[in-house]
């Protein structure tokens, strides 16, 4: 296909609709919801891009993917070059094409969106990334000559993988230490199969390994190695160990059988494949009525997982209204289609148990919206006396995570903020020279793409820092 369409003709093209699994069917399986564009749809969608002289979409992207460029290469029929361009900007396009909130980043900036629907940038990214994964032999990795510098990355989530991918291309020798038995961090333990198949993550990780990134699993930095040891053995350190500490509601009954943190619930199902029990050895309580507390993407993932595991009813308990939900619009929409029930303006005050200490319900109070709080969202306030009981036998608490102190508590010199997050400068460097940090351990719970942006920035800063540092003999 040539790019000979006039802007007027381009404006006439309708945004292509992502083919999806039927809601009734997918609510009971773990296969991916979005099926991906066939070639023809992808090429039509690509033609919708106006190739703006001053594109705003690139600035909307936390890793600054040169969006019009890869789309242009698509319309020229050069998919390999499109993939090459995309991979040069983004180490994990198959992941971001599936889980990024494009509607608040690149697509909200899309100039076409001023009049009608923006270009489906995320869908196109996914299309090109999937092509690239299946045609790895047609892609060349450009790699700088070896620098002789060794960098260690703590954590193999989106931030760590991105940093490692960038660093290895800059010629550095990169080792990732991962605490769990499988690389990917939140991409494998947190985000469910139906949104991000594990196969995709595995293949993206394999590509980084083929580029030269070494990954060692089962290494818990802070326990297996102290940070100080890493500083002695490597020329630079990038800490991206995530915000893995679950926050509980701190209400009575929270230790009853049947109450999970979203981390535990999703880890059992995703990382440990509990949905295949007894073919996989790790169990999970399925529940007839599952109540998920929270309104973010993790809450959506948990509640949709509950439905797929076989819950008759899966519901969201959220203390504000739909308008304030932090979850992606697409996830909320998909959840609604799958028959998820929403209980808005509702906050749990107690988990109720039966005589055998299994969960039997959530005692809640109705809320109303008051004045905006520090986050700019209306502050929910309880309506006195407006109590209700939500029947349920499994409760999943998805109200956020905090910084895991496992690593930071072992290095008192590392400067933290009052929440326990690592403090970094504009370059991503911590209070310890040569030690950089990014992702959720710095930001608190954020998104995959912001973590990746940190990884990319930190990789460049590490490269510059190493270039300015005289070569020293390292001990290992």
């Amino acid at each position, binding site marked *: 296909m040539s790019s000979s369409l006039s802007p007027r003709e381009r404006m006439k093209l309708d945004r292509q609709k992502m083919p999806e699994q039927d809601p009734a069917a997918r609510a009971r399986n773990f296969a991916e919801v979005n099926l991906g564009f066939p070639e023809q749809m992808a090429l039509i969608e690509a033609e919708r891009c106006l190739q703006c002289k001053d594109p705003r979409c690139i600035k909307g992207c936390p890793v600054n993917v040169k969006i019009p460029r890869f789309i242009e290469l698509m319309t020229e029929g050069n998919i390999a070059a499109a993939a090459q361009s995309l991979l040069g900007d983004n180490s994990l396009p198959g992941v971001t094409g599936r889980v990024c909130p494009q509607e608040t980043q690149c697509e909200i900036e899309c100039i076409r969106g001023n009049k009608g629907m923006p270009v489906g940038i995320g869908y196109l990214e996914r299309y090109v990334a999937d092509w690239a994964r299946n045609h790895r032999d047609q892609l060349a990795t450009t790699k700088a000559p070896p620098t002789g510098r060794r960098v260690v990355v703590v954590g193999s989530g989106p931030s760590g993988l991105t940093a490692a991918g960038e660093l290895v291309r800059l010629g550095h020798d990169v080792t990732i230490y991962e605490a769990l038995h499988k690389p990917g961090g939140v991409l494998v333990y947190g985000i469910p199969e139906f949104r991000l198949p594990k196969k995709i993550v595995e293949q993206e990780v394999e590509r980084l390994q083929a580029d030269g990134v070494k990954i060692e699993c*089962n290494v818990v930095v802070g326990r297996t190695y102290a940070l100080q040891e890493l500083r002695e053995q490597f020329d630079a350190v990038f800490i991206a160990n995530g915000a893995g500490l679950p926050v509980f509601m701190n209400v009575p009954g929270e230790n009853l059988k049947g109450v999970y943190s979203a981390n535990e619930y999703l880890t059992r199902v995703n990382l440990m494949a509990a949905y295949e029990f007894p*073919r996989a050895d790790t169990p999970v309580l399925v529940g007839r009525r599952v109540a998920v507390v929270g309104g973010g993407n993790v809450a959506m993932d948990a509640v949709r997982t509950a439905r797929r595991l076989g819950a008759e009813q899966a519901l969201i308990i959220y203390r504000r209204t739909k308008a304030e939900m932090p979850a992606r619009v697409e996830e909320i929409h998909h959840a609604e289609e799958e028959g998820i029930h929403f209980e808005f303006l509702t906050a749990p005050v107690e988990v109720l148990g039966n005589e055998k200490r299994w969960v039997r319900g959530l005692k809640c109070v109705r809320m109303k919206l008051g004045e905006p709080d520090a986050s700019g969202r209306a502050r929910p306030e309880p309506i006195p006396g407006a109590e209700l009981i939500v029947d349920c036998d499994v409760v999943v608490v998805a109200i956020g995570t905090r910084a895991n102190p496992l690593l930071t508590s072992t290095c008192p010199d590392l400067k933290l903020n009052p929440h326990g997050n690592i403090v970094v400068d504009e370059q991503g460097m911590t209070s310890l020279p040569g030690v950089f940090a990014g992702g959720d351990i710095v930001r608190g719970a954020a998104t995959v793409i912001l973590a990746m942006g940190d990884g990319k920035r930190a990789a460049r800063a590490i490269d510059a820092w190493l270039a300015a540092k005289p070569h020293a003999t390292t001990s290992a």
Partner: protein
Amino acid sequence: MHRVVQRRQLSPNVTLLEVEAARIAQIRRPGQFVIVRLGGNAERIPLTIADANPAEGTITLVIQAVGKSTRELVALQPGQAIQDIAGPLGHPTEQIDSGHAVCVGGGVGTAVVHPIAQGLHHKGLKVTSIIGGRSREWVIFEQELRALGDVLVCTDDGSYGRKGFVTDALKDLLSTAGADIVYAVGPVPMMRAVATLTRPLKVRTIVSLNPVMVDGTGMCGGCRVSVGAETRFACVDGPEFDGHLVDFDELMDRLGTYREFEQRAAQCPDGPCRIGLTAPAAT
């Protein structure tokens, strides 16, 4: 991969595995644990490190076969391997500097008490161990503990040592020799009984807890236990806690969360489960 270099059957359902884990062997301290995963779709299982040989690069795990996963582990023979071992996790044992320490071990818990007693002995403390089992064949680590101090053995049926519970022997010992600190590791009812006994006497009592755990790094919160008025995570805040403050009833209850699943898992999908409780013939 972590190769099994030695395997010994200690009691009808308790097996010792010495496995390669060089880094952990070097740095582990008494009281710490590892997360073990056999491979494939296996579970992550927390196991306390019973001993380590830094020179050989091995650690010793003592495993009670209770469910499918532990039965698969104890069926491993020398030369076979465990895919994943992460650690050492948790805090090392709180130790006192001098005095008389009493180490109480019940069943497989005796294997956890052993490194604690070792550490205390090396520090120069007087160590008395009280260990128990259903009957003679269930008593483990007796010889190893005898090398560290006095050992009192109790069996439920009186087939060896004193007839009765470890708490009976502990009660007598506390009233005669006294103790500056008590460590108790074993079934929850045993630890609860020890804590109940020592609480009015104000003898500091440390227990090592083994709740349901997934990641072992503070991420899942499945291992939460109530200690005093607080919720603590056994994996990162423990596994050892002040026995006088632990809510044992809650712990016991939460340990039963997956009982029904364990029964289902025991019925192998491919027909009757052939993984037995006893060791296959040595090769």
